[in-house]
């Protein structure tokens, strides 16, 4: 028989004013298993705690119930208190006599009756509690950053500066992401490359950072502190250990294909360094374009390479490494507007370009060396139309959300056109102008003063007559249809999560929202955490944002990672699921419903009569389980149970309540 101690707190008069605490304590004495019961002014106070400890010794109690405020308030306090006694901290239950009884009722007799019942429930439950011990898991003091854009670079630098090893996995041949493609950044108009390339170099040269370019995450196992990650390195066909980055190969390569970096507006060779400031500044071969790899012809680069770094036999390589924490920074891509908007020509007019293409056009290192010209005929445009919300805020054809950065970069584009092309005219079709940011509204003001014409209305159709692009919109402020005969149209296309984010998310066991953005644990209070402990996110993988927000999020994610890596080991909650493998039939339904991928099916030796057989049963990974208990209600056998909230405990609570 258990020896339960029941302690009823007055909480000053908070409880005692509405509940007859003496009566409750008295009633508790006759409850099954109760060896001792009393009331006291403040149980949570030092004398209160000392009194409980004394009672435990004096009455040889083996578990206790405290009738006090909500367990959300003082459960940890009392558990800590029990650590100094012979009673396991988990042999404790709290009856919520304050928030859910005394404070919400007025009739003292009825409130007292309810309080007795609540204590009864707690007593019934605690009698079935089992001692639980927290276990600790060691922490691997290394971090993995997935994505080498500005978010990933910043997070990696911050973690590395704190003294921990970081690996950046980037699927492209260089780090840098989208920011390095941009020309100027709003609202300060500083050169994007000038501020981002030094960070790329820092990341490349940092002793604690390992760059893994042309790499992808293949598989993720384990849990916080102990992730085991398999990284797939695509074939580069160039031995980067030997290559000096002299670039001779790309000057001699005869095959030219469109450049991704220049958004299709220039050519690059089949063996290529994506752009001059790439990190690492070493070439890779594009296997789809290379003549040697596709048709077994050419082979010039191999012949010409002074140190023999070319290797046409290169293959995909896999490496497996351990990490304590992971940062997801997979970034964004622009939506494919050509599929969405046939009424804007669906891509058949060369002079209808995206904002990112314009960034390359206006960039001194871009295909036109910074001259704004029409891609179709190389002429300088005089009348330019900028269309905002292409794919954003369009539930039918595109995305429901606002892409956040377009209002500002469109204002910047207008400013740049008006600045660079004398006598040019810029018309910006908008639905709303959104400039919430430091210095943003002022920038928009200045663009209007520069002469940009803002026309409130969405464009319905863009088509070509002669050399002009006819843009049909409505000026909704005057309520008339308007037409602009333009030389060039820039579409501010929506951002969406980068392609392939689905695979990353499913490998990591985290989730995406309805718009494919990676889901944060809480939009306000846990903005850089994911549902899975030890996995963090930053930048545009979480939602559209501009550079300042991305960089600050990266810093926040890094500090969360450092917070974990600072410890040698961490405690895990013992209130998690466990499987009675003798009863488990291995149906795997618990595996499917677990939001943390904490349950897996394993093969264990078993017996079938006298025969030794291999049984398939479920097993809970203690590092991953967060203790929600969803699995327990899925299990028909009831062989998976949640410690601290076992079937037995809850059934006893139900029984006690119905007495």
């Amino acid at each position: 028989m258990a020896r339960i101690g029941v302690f009823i707190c007055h909480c000053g008069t908070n409880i005692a004013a509405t509940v007859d605490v003496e009566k409750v304590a008295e009633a508790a004495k006759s409850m099954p298993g109760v060896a001792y019961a009393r009331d006291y002014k403040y149980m949570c106070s030092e004398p209160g705690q000392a009194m409980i400890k004394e009672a435990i010794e004096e009455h040889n109690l083996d578990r206790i119930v405290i009738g006090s405020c909500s367990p959300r308030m003082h459960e940890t306090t009392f558990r800590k208190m029990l650590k100094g006694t012979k009673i396991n901290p988990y042999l404790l239950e709290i009856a919520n006599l304050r928030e859910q009884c005394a404070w919400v009722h007025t009739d003292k007799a009825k409130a007292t009756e309810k309080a007795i019942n609540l204590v009864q429930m707690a007593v019934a439950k605690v009698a079935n509690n089992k001692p639980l011990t927290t276990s600790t898991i060691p922490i691997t003091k290394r971090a993995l950053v997935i994505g080498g854009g500005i978010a990933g670079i910043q997070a990696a630098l911050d973690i590395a500066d704190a003294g921990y090893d970081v690996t950046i996995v980037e699927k492209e041949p260089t780090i840098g992401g989208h920011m390095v493609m941009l020309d100027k950044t709003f609202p300060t108009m500083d050169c994007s490359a000038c501020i981002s390339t030094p960070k790329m170099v820092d990341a490349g040269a940092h002793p604690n950072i390992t760059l893994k370019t042309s790499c992808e995450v293949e598989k993720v196992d384990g849990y916080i502190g102990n992730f085991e990650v398999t990284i797939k390195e695509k074939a580069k066909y160039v031995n980067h250990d030997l290559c000096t980055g002299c670039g001779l190969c790309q000057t001699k390569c005869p095959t030219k294909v469109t450049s991704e970096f220049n958004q299709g507006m220039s050519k690059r060779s089949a063996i290529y360094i994506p752009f001059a400031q790439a990190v690492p500044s070493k070439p890779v071969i594009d296997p789809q374009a290379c003549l040697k790899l596709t048709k077994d012809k050419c082979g010039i680069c191999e012949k010409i390479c002074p140190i023999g770094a070319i290797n046409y036999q290169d293959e995909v390589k896999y490496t497996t490494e351990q990490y304590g924490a992971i940062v997801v920074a997979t970034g964004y891509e622009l939506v494919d507007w050509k599929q969405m908007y046939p009424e804007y020509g669906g891509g058949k007019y060369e002079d209808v370009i995206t904002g990112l293409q314009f960034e390359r056009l206006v960039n001194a290192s871009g295909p036109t060396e910074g001259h704004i010209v029409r891609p179709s005929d190389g002429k300088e445009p005089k009348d330019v139309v900028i269309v905002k919300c292409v794919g954003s805020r369009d539930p039918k054809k595109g995305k429901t959300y606002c892409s956040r950065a377009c209002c500002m970069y469109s204002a910047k584009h207008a400013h740049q056109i008006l600045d660079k092309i004398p006598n040019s005219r810029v018309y910006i079709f908008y639905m709303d102008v959104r400039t919430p940011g430091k210095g943003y509204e002022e920038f928009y003001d200045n663009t209007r003063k520069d002469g940009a014409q803002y026309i409130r209305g969405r464009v319905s159709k863009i088509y070509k007559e002669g050399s002009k692009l006819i843009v049909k919109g409505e000026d909704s402020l005057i309520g008339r249809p308007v037409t602009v005969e333009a030389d060039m149209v820039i579409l501010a296309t929506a951002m969406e999560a980068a392609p392939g984010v689905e695979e990353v998310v499913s490998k990591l066991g985290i989730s995406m929202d309805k718009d494919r953005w990676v889901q944060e644990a809480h939009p306000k209070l846990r903005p850089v955490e994911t549902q899975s402990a030890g996995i963090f996110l930053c930048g545009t993988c979480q939602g559209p944002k501009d550079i300042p927000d991305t960089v600050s999020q990266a810093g926040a994610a890094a500090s969360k990672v450092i917070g974990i890596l600072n410890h040698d080991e961490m405690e895990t909650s013992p209130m998690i699921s466990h499987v009675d493998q003798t009863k488990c039939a291995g149906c795997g339904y618990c595996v499917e419903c677990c939001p943390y991928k904490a349950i897996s099916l394993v093969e264990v030796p078993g017996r079938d009569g006298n025969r030794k057989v291999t049984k398939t049963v479920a097993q809970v990974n203690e590092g991953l389980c967060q203790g929600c208990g969803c699995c327990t209600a899925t299990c028909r056998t009831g062989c998976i149970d949640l410690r601290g909230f076992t079937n037995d405990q809850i059934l006893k609570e139900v029984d006690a309540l119905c007495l």
Partner: protein
Amino acid sequence: MKQYAYYPGCSMDSTAVTYKKSFEYIASKIGLVMKEIPDWNCCGSTAAHTKNEKMAYALSARNIAIAEEELPGLDIVTPCASCYSRLKYASYVGKNDEAKRQEIEEVLRRSFKAEAEVLNFLDLFEDPEIQEAIKEKLHRNLEGLNVACYYGCLMSRPREITGETDPENPMKMDEIIELTGAKAIAWDYKTECCGASHQVDAPEHARELIDRIFRNAQANGADVIVTACPLCNMNLDMREAEINKNFGRKYNIPVFQFTELIAIAMGASAADCGIHQHFFPAFDVINEVVKTGAKKAAAEAKAEAKKDPLKDGPIVVGKAGR
């Protein structure tokens, strides 16, 4: 060959002479038999659904109901975009709204199952059997003719009614026209409205719609515009001269029914498809193409004949009647 229930619509029997003639020519050449719906009535057009929704459905549904009764199992084909739209609406409502279907059935005093599919002429000419038959009978190559295919609104929109997957840039007619060797040009007014429904009652507002269509066709290098609807066709053809006069334009873009070009490619004479019955002179443009094509064919045939003297002589182009 597959059989179809035929709903010609009122215009096919009056103003759409060239459409009727050219279609009949094609049908007779390829052995296509259309079963006209007995005692069909007007679909109600734009006017009915402006006035009374139930009447609009009922008038169209009567034709479907008769077809289902008298010509069971056949798809219903109509040459007119407006009739197509109205019949298709009635059929859509019948298929998707049981209460309305019953109500329509009640007022019709006929069974209206809404099971027969409603097709337009472009759908009909997409029938692979018909396409094959046409290909076999092609006698002329209209190479060099730049055609702007004009679909209008009702054939493509609303997409849940028409089933058109790309209402901004449909391609059915383009594909059919290219059978003739002519080039279907890319242009931007394929599905812009021609304002036919308001050309009579609000001409002061609606004429500019016609002008814009010609302007874009011209800007994109069209020699001719091709339609698949009696109303679009008449609206553009009949008013081109007036537009030239009143808007100060010099458009020289005859407007054909797509069936006319196919008929010509199959060897029809100008009289066979009523080229002389156009409002806007259309003979010269088509004659030019036919002549060039004939010369080229003759040259090719000659070259071929040299190689193989037993081969048939050159194809003689029928003398255009007028």
